[in-house]
Every structure is written in structure tokens, then in C-alpha cells.
């Protein structure tokens, strides 16, 4: 009697172990293996296996086995009809009764029954959740060499129910993860398509203007570098890059002759050309971009901090930050590439231009960020020398450029500091 009580206490504490193993194991197979150990250890059983039932294709996949040497099977076909039979049955199947109960092999199938008997399994518990088979657990060989008692069967039934729920929950989780993965992949594909479309568009824009080939793509890349240096989020960085690629999209509706004019254009032509930011906005606004500010970047990339830009003459912080970034990227590329009517500026002159136009044309924080990014490249910190590569070989001489950049950054920071003090 005392022994019976001790066994019950042990089984009870094993039930607590089972709950913990099911709740704490994150890996499906680990969870199943742990729970098999708990059942075997609860009753002192020498061998067992747990199979997961899959409906499509209908089979039992053996997930865990113990005490069977290398003889445990990997899987067995198990048709849906049998699965249903197991669910409506009365629970445990006693394989030692196969001689006296011919119905048994029918329930499990002759082949599986034979396999399990050869593995010296004597009891099978179907794992049923919500009236559906999720798997089964097969057990055998009490270390005491006794037969299963009614109490043993109760313990097994209870544990089988818990393990069934554990398997079911893990499956739900796997399904949710699979769908999340699918969605992520779909989303990434769409992003990829979007990015490719944007690049194709940029190429189309630059095609119209034969002297600014690659301009849009470079502006996108400079904008991206500046935004990263400003510490923006990945979404914002991608948004401003797209804004850079598309900033001149409005030129698609401006006369090709004006764009390609091999001379400085007159006032009338100029006002036609100045339509391109607003035209770009009209083109981009109906599109649902991941970043809603992209049409504004096109619209305001010719605005100036001092309010003397176009089309609206916005001032300072009236201009969206991303448009300020695109504006600098655009002007920087214009200064550093040859045009029809002029050659590009030498880099020290570019620095001078930035110095005199910061606070007028360009936002100070944006210029500082760009100079910092370039300084990092000159100092050789980033493995990818992106700006330097965009500028072409030999344009930047590190020994010459470094002090200029340091000086400009210091000056702009001092100016910003003084302005903040005055405000």
C-alpha cells in the first residue's frame, strides 16, 4: 500500500515535470523527447516512442524513441480512416491482446502492429486533441516486469492528453511562423520590385537628359548616405533614397530641348524647367509609396533655407527634412559632374560653395552630416568608399581634403552653436 502511494506521488511529480517540459521547450523535437522521458521515468518503462500524425500525406512520423537501440522506425503510412477510428476508440490499445482481440491490428494496421510488437511495445496511447489525431505514444517494458495496472493506465491517459495538447500547440505555432515567413518573403519581394521599378524610372529620367546620365541614381545614393549619417531609421533611409532617385521625375514632362540645351537657358525656358518639381509631385502623389513623403521630396528639392527657392519659396523648417537632404545631394552631384556648358568644380571649390551656401541654400545639419560621412571615408573607416567611388578615381585627394572637411565641420558647428545661443 505504501509502495502504491509512493508510486502515485512520483507519478504526480512527473506530471508537474511534464507541464514544465511542454511549456519551456521551444524546439518541437526537444519537447517531444523530454515528454517521452517523463512518461517513461514516471512509470519506470524501458522503451517508448512518440509519433506525430500528419494528415497530408497521411503518415506517422516518429519524433522520439528511447530504449530501442537503432531499431526505431522513422515513419509509417497511416490513412485517415485509421486515424478517425483511433479517435473514437476508448483510448489505450493493449498490444499484448492482439491474439485475443483481432480488432486491434485493424485499428493500427497489420504492418504497424507487427512493427510495434517486434519492438516489444505493449501499450499504445493515441494523442487526440479536439477530436483529431495528432499522434500516438507507444510504451513497453516496465522495469519491474509487471503488467500495467489500472493506475498506470490513468497516468498514461492523463500524460497522453497533455502531450497531445503540447504537440498541437507547437504545430499551431509552426503554422503561424510559416505564414509570418511567407508574408515577410512576399513583402520583401514587393519591396524588391518597388526598388527595381524606382531604379528603372531613375534611368528613364536620366535618359531624357543626356548630359546628366546617372544623376538620379547618384542623388539617391548620396541622400541615403546623408540620412544614415543623420541617424535616421532604415525605413526613412530607404524613403529618402527613393526620393533621391525620383526627385527629377517631373523632367519627363518638361521639353527635352530645354533640358538638353547646350547653353544657359533664357527666362521663359527657365520657368518651363522650373515646373519640374511640381510636375514630379503630380506624378508621384497618386502612388502609394512605403514612405509617404516621397512626392514632397520631389516637390521641394529646389527649395532653399533662405526662402529664395522654388516652387513655393518655403523657409527653414517649412521644408521637410528629407527634401533638404535630397536638395543637398542634388546640388552636390551638379557641382561634382561635368555639364554641357561647364566642367565640374575642383573639390576645394565645392567645399567653398558648401561653406558660403550653408544656412542660405542648404540646411546646416545636412551639410555637416555629409561632410562627416565623407571624412569617415577619407579616414578609411567604412569598408565601402561609396562617395569617393561615386566621384570617380583621383577626384578626392585625402591629404588635401581632410583638413578642409575638418575645418568646415568645425566652422558649421560653431555657427550652429552660436545661432542656438542667440535663439
Amino acid at each position, binding site marked *: 500500500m505504501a509502495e502504491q502511494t509512493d508510486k502515485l506521488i*512520483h507519478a504526480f511529480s512527473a506530471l508537474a*515535470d*511534464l507541464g514544465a517540459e511542454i511549456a519551456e521547450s521551444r524546439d518541437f523535437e526537444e519537447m517531444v523527447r523530454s515528454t517521452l522521458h517523463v512518461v517513461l*521515468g*514516471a512509470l519506470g518503462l*524501458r522503451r517508448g516512442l512518440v509519433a506525430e500524425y500528419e494528415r497530408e500525406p497521411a503518415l506517422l512520423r516518429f519524433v522520439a524513441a528511447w530504449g530501442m537501440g537503432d531499431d526505431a522506425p522513422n515513419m509509417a503510412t497511416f490513412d485517415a480512416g485509421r486515424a478517425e477510428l483511433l479517435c473514437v476508440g476508448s483510448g489505450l490499445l493493449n498490444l499484448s491482446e492482439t491474439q485475443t482481440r483481432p480488432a486491434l491490428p485493424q485499428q493500427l494496421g497489420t504492418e504497424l502492429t507487427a512493427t510495434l510488437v517486434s519492438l516489444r511495445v505493449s501499450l499504445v496511447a493515441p494523442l487526440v486533441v479536439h477530436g483529431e489525431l495528432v499522434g500516438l505514444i507507444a510504451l513497453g517494458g*516496465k522495469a519491474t516486469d509487471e503488467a500495467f495496472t489500472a493506475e498506470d493506465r490513468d497516468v498514461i491517459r492523463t500524460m497522453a492528453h497533455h502531450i497531445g495538447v503540447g504537440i498541437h500547440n507547437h504545430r499551431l505555432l509552426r503554422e503561424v511562423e510559416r505564414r509570418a515567413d511567407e508574408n515577410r518573403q512576399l513583402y520583401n519581394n514587393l519591396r524588391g520590385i518597388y526598388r527595381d521599378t524606382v531604379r528603372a524610372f531613375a534611368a528613364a529620367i536620366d535618359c531624357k537628359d543626356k548630359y546628366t546620365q546617372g544623376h538620379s541614381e547618384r542623388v539617391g545614393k548620396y541622400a541615403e548616405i546623408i540620412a544614415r549619417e543623420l541617424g535616421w531609421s532604415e525605413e526613412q533611409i530607404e524613403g529618402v533614397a527613393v526620393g533621391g532617385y525620383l526627385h527629377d521625375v517631373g523632367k519627363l514632362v518638361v521639353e527635352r530641348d530645354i533640358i538638353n540645351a547646350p547653353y544657359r537657358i533664357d527666362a521663359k525656358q527657365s520657368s518651363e524647367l522650373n515646373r519640374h518639381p511640381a510636375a514630379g509631385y503630380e506624378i508621384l502623389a497618386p502612388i502609394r509609396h512605403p514612405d509617404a513623403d516621397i512626392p514632397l521630396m520631389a516637390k521641394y528639392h529646389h527649395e532653399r533655407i533662405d526662402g529664395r527657392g522654388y516652387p513655393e519659396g518655403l523657409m527653414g523648417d517649412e521644408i521637410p527634412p528629407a527634401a533638404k537632404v535630397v536638395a543637398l545631394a542634388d546640388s552636390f552631384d551638379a557641382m561634382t559632374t561635368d555639364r554641357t556648358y561647364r566642367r565640374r568644380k575642383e573639390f576645394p571649390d565645392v567645399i567653398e560653395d558648401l561653406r558660403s551656401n550653408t544656412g542660405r541654400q542648404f540646411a546646416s545639419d545636412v551639410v555637416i552630416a555629409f561632410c562627416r560621412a565623407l571624412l569617415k571615408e577619407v579616414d578609411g573607416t567604412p569598408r565601402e568608399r561609396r562617395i569617393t567611388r561615386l566621384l570617380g578615381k583621383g577626384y578626392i585627394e585625402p591629404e588635401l581634403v581632410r583638413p578642409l572637411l575638418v575645418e568646415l565641420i568645425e566652422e558649421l558647428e560653431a555657427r550652429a552653436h552660436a545661432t542656438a545661443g542667440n535663439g
Partner: protein
Amino acid sequence: MGEAPAGSPVRSERTGDVAVVYAGDYLNKLSGERIERVCRERLREGCRALVVDFNETSMVNSIGVSILLGVIDAAERTSARLVFAGASGQAAQLFQLLGLTRHVTLAPDKQTALKLLSEFTDAGAANH
């Protein structure tokens, strides 16, 4: 000797035909399967007897029992002798209750276990 594939190694040592495997404090978790693996390796290497030392194992739970039943299975498959040494009162009672003691000899400590086994192997040798 006795390196487990992952995590802290299962300690084991070998004297002649006898291997001592230390159950440590990881017997009661899934990682305890490593103990059974090490036991099987020692048997495959030709050990004729195993001592599982429980000196550093304070208690044994259901997972621990199952793993030890695996060790018993491995020993029986190679007809090796198996002694559990230094099991706590709780563990020894559990081994008794669940029938493990029908398949394994209990010894109060490793030295006694080794002595038991040497008597057995000597007796075995004398028979030949």
C-alpha cells in the same frame, strides 16, 4: 575522454575493462541523454562493466530515471555489468520502487562499486 558533443562534458574515466561515468547535475534534463551516449561509447570501446557515479547528483526525477533506463538497456545489449554508486536515499528508493534495482546493483560509493566489479571480473576470469 568522455567529451559530450555540446555543453559541459560528461566526465568519465576508464580503468581496464571498467568505465566510471559521472551523472553530475544534468541527469534530470534532456541534456542528460549525453550520459547514456557516453556510456554507450565506453561499451562500444570494449568496456565490460560500467559504474554510474551519483556522488554529485542530489536527486533524480522522471527524466533522470528514463535516461538511466536507457543506460541499463545499453548495458544489457552488450551483456555488461552495471553498478550505480553513491545514489542518495531518495534516488535509491526511487530505483527500488520503479524496478531499476532488478537490473542494476547499487553500491554506497565508487570504491565499493569498483571492488564489487573486480571481484566479479576476477571470478569471471577464474571460471575460464
